[in-house]
């Protein structure tokens, strides 16, 4: 069995801030989702500019 890229043989790291408590891996995934969401809203779609609706 191949080893993991990261050393996983320890308890997970946790982000604590007042009442907020979440594992670092979950925080990373949520931040990634927010970045992807912002990209999907703001980034121009290929070919969109030359096919704007004329109505």
């Amino acid at each position, binding site marked *: 069995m191949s080893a993991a890229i990261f050393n996983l043989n320890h308890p997970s790291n946790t982000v604590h801030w007042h009442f907020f408590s979440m594992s670092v891996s979950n925080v990373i995934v949520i931040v990634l989702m927010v970045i*992807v*969401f912002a990209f*999907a809203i703001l*980034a121009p*779609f290929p070919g*969109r500019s030359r*096919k704007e*609706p004329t*109505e």
Partner: protein
Amino acid sequence: MSGTAKRPWTGAVRERAVGALPPEKLLPDSQPAYMASWIYIFGVLSLASLVLLIASGMILSLQGPDWWHSSGIGHFFNSIHLWSVELFFFFMIVHLWGKYWMAAWRGGRARVWITGTVTFLVAIPCALTGYVSQQNFDSQWISTQAKDALNAAGIGSFWNLMNFGQMYTYHVLLLPLAVVGLVAAHVLLVRKHGIVPPFQISDEPPATPAPRPATAEPMP
């Protein structure tokens, strides 16, 4: 006795199905121009992840839940299964955010929104039963912890997290069946009602979405 011949139910079902979803709506060859945005791709990305998820799960089920502990091939398909469910939830949540801020229930699309939301809710226990099917110490720990939660909620006598057979059946049959059925209904409803148009920025009244507008773009 009436003289009229009794009509077969199959004909009535066919007429109703074709009336609700004519072929040009079921398999359209064009979409409104406003679909040319990245935010509209996360639904199909969720679908692609679900296909990969189901396929890898079916391969894993051929050899049983402990196959991946002793076989490199089993470990490979287990990893495919894990990462496809990670992507499924990732894309589904971004899809949900996009549709929420678009108010995708507008224009008679309440059932589209409801089926999508219920799919998300059903997918959560579908994934959690996978965690308790791993056949390792992790799954033992999760099942004993979750057992206490269900007992505290008063439903532990029916859903017993320590009953591996029950959890495994839920994971590989009942809940995936529900997810796939809900996704199929969701996609058919999207085909029926069309994708939700964006909000109008100007003061002009919003245009009624047509199934094949003049500015439609051909589908790739």
